[in-house]
Every structure is written in C-alpha cells, then in structure tokens.
C-alpha cells in the first residue's frame, strides 16, 4: 500500500543521524520532526533565524516574535539560538546544515528540482529554496510520486522552471525510496510496503534503475 504523508515523513526520519542540523521545508518535510528516532538528538534550523526549534506553543503562549519560516508560531528548546537572515544563510550556504528536506513539483533523473513556479500561475517566490538546494550536500525530496493529474513527478527532464540543478540526492515518495545516481537515473532502493516494482515502474517517467531484489521499507 502506498504511504500517506506521515509514512513518507517516517521513512525520511530513518535518514537522520544523531547530532545533525536539519532544515525542514513546508508540507510533508515538517512532519519529519514528529518521527525522530528514540535517543537521537537532531537540531532543527529554520531559515528565518532559529536553531533549536521546538514544538508549537501551548494555546495562549504564542509569541509573535517567535515564528518559523512557514510563519507559524513555535517555541525554542534549551540551547536554542536566534540570528539574523544573513547569518542563517551563512549556515546553509556554508554547508553547516547537514540535511535539507523539501517538497518538489518535479525532480529530474539528474537531480534537478522544480518547486517554486508554474508559468501562467501566480508566482509566490522561491523564498529560501534556491539557497537550500544549491548549498546542501544532502538533500532529500519528500513528495508524492505523481501529481494531482496522475502524472509522474520523477522525470527525464523537469518541465517547470528550475529551483536548482543537479542537487537532489534522494527522493522519498508514497511509493518508493530512490537515489539519484551520478550518471543520471533514479535508482530504486526500497518499495513502500505492498507496492510492486511494476507499480513503481509505471508511475515513473524518468529513467528508473532496478538492480537485484528491491526490499520493502521497514517502517
């Protein structure tokens, strides 16, 4: 059975390592924070200027001066620190943030990502996404395998304006975990529980690389 959004987040959480600094984008990526493995300590950076972001505040304890990059009210954990936007992107651009998880509208088999603009529609802007994808050593895209029209989001080439070039390393969808390999192609690493290789094949427009048996995710 294909994963739901929480399932995708749960699978991505398995990629975390103790002590990592992590930036989570809006949407599915945000849910990753709910699935940090027991005993592991991960520090969340929000690009508007906080490290050590905690959960939402209790009702009545919201502070307008304390928000995340999604403009949501948040809290700060012990050991948190606030900083300005140029310092925040110094962390990101300087590759001090070990993992970036973000959503995408399209990913190509050479790691291009498109997630900020649909021609003809209102353009809201790229926010910090272009800095994040251009800088991070380790980028995981969290998304559904197909768009609302049922079309594959894993493509030979992105059709939408790009956010970044050749930067995505791994994609976790409702159907599969895929690694983008150096010479181009989505190497299938894991299947969602109960999802067949054939289902993934037919849902993927880009070059899919299947080597040997593909295990199911263990969630």
């Amino acid at each position: 059975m294909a994963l739901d959004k929480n399932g995708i987040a749960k699978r991505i959480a398995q990629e975390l390592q103790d002590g990592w600094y992590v930036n989570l984008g809006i949407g599915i990526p945000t849910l990753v924070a709910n699935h940090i493995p027991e005993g592991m300590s991960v520090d969340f950076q929000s690009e508007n200027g906080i490290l050590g972001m905690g959960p939402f505040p209790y009702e009545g304890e919201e502070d307008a001066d304390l928000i995340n990059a999604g403009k949501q009210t948040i809290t700060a954990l012990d050991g948190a620190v606030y900083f300005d936007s140029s310092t925040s992107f110094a962390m990101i651009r300087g590759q001090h943030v070990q993992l970036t998880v973000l959503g995408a509208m399209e990913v190509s088999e050479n790691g291009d990502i498109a997630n900020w603009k649909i021609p003809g529609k209102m353009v809201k802007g790229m926010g910090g996404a272009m800095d994040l994808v251009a800088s991070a050593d380790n980028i995981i895209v969290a998304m559904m395998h197909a768009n609302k029209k049922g079309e594959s989001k894993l493509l030979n080439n992105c059709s939408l304006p790009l956010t970044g070039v050749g930067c995505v390393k791994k994609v976790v969808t409702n159907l599969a975990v895929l690694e983008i390999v150096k010479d181009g192609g989505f190497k299938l690493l894991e299947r969602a529980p109960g999802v067949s290789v054939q289902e993934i094949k037919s849902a993927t427009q880009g070059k899919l690389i299947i080597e040997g048996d593909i295990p199911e995710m263990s969630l």
Partner: protein
Amino acid sequence: MINKVVSSAHHACSGIEHGMTIMLGGFGLCGIPENCIAELVKMQVKELTCISNNAGVDDFGLGLLLQQRQIRKMISSYVGENDEFERQMLSGELEVDLIPQGSLAERCRAGGAGIPAFFTPAGYGTEVGEGKEVRIFNDKPHILESALTADYAIVKAWKGDKTGNLIFKGTARNFNPPMAMAGKITIAEVEELVEPGELDPNQIHTPGIFVQRIFKGEGYQKRIEQRTTRKKA
C-alpha cells in the same frame, strides 16, 4: 552634540520622497517597522522601490502601501500572502524582482559592508542566474550577485539606546540587521528606548554606527500570520 533620537515616525521618515528605494526589515509580519509603514501610508509617498523579504498581507505590513498603490517595484524572496499584490503584479502595475532569500540577505549585508559583489551557488541554472556571470569554484558553478543599498533602511528592534545601538528579540531579528547596514539613512523604531550605557556593550546586535535616526514606536499590533498551537497534555 548630534541627536539621533526623533520624537515620532513622522520625524523619522522625513526626507523620504517619491521614487526612492526603501529597505524594510521583517519576515512575514514578524519584526516589521509598523510605525514607519503607517507613516509612509500617511505621507502618500509613491513610486517606491521596496526591498523586503515579503510584501505583508492584504491589510497589514507592506500590504497597506500596496493598497494605496505606493509601490512601483518589490524586491523580495516570497510574496505569497497577498491578493492585492497578485492583482497588481498580474495587471503589470507592480514590478517584481524575486531573489533567493539567502542572496537577498547577503546582498543587503554586502551593500552595508562595502562588498560590491560576491559569488554564490544559489540560483545557478535557474532564471535567477540568467544573464549573470558564472564561475566554477570547488567544482561547483556559482553566480555573481551584486550588493543592494537603499536611500532609507527602516528597521524594527526590541531595545535601542540613544546612540542607535539595537537589540532584537527572537526571530524578529531576521532581515533587520543586514538591512540596517545598507541604508544611506537608517531609521530604527524600537519598543524600548534607553540611555547610552544601559545596554550591555557585549549584547548589541546592530552597532549604532549603522543607525541615523531612532524613536520609540507605539501601539505595536504584532499580528500573527499562522497561529499554530498544541494542547496541554
């Protein structure tokens, strides 16, 4: 002795004219200079180029200037929360320059720091990089980005002293410090204005040298865009 303290937003904003370039601190509605924005509306100053990470919401923040058609051009990274913005942009009344958030912040800092241009990987291979010089460093392509400055930079701080030293609170800091550096004239509105010496010199975020005018703001609304909470267990 020069006095940086002015009595109100009205005096702070004097000299701002049609067609000028203004930087405004804030991220969403967090840490925005509410008093000066209200004053700019009152002044009816038009044809502004506004450099600000966001464009406010329909009825608050820079949205108030958009309502009055005071902005000719927005330079921002994300402008999604504003219907009037969308209408003006699609109709061609409003020019919009979208810049990656980190490049926007660094370009402001660079403008204040006398660095006219720098290389960054952000935007390479995208439309942001079109027409910009590309150079490879460490096997990775980078684009050359230029500094941003403004006729006026308007920032909002938590505490300030009369020499212009500023301290920010929480994530309301955001773009305020780099923009404070980049204004030919920088105006700071603060929640609390104290005498020189009352702020610990180790704890100042923006040194007063970057600030030309300072005043105590009033009636801060501090609107919350996305009120997210959890229930007590």
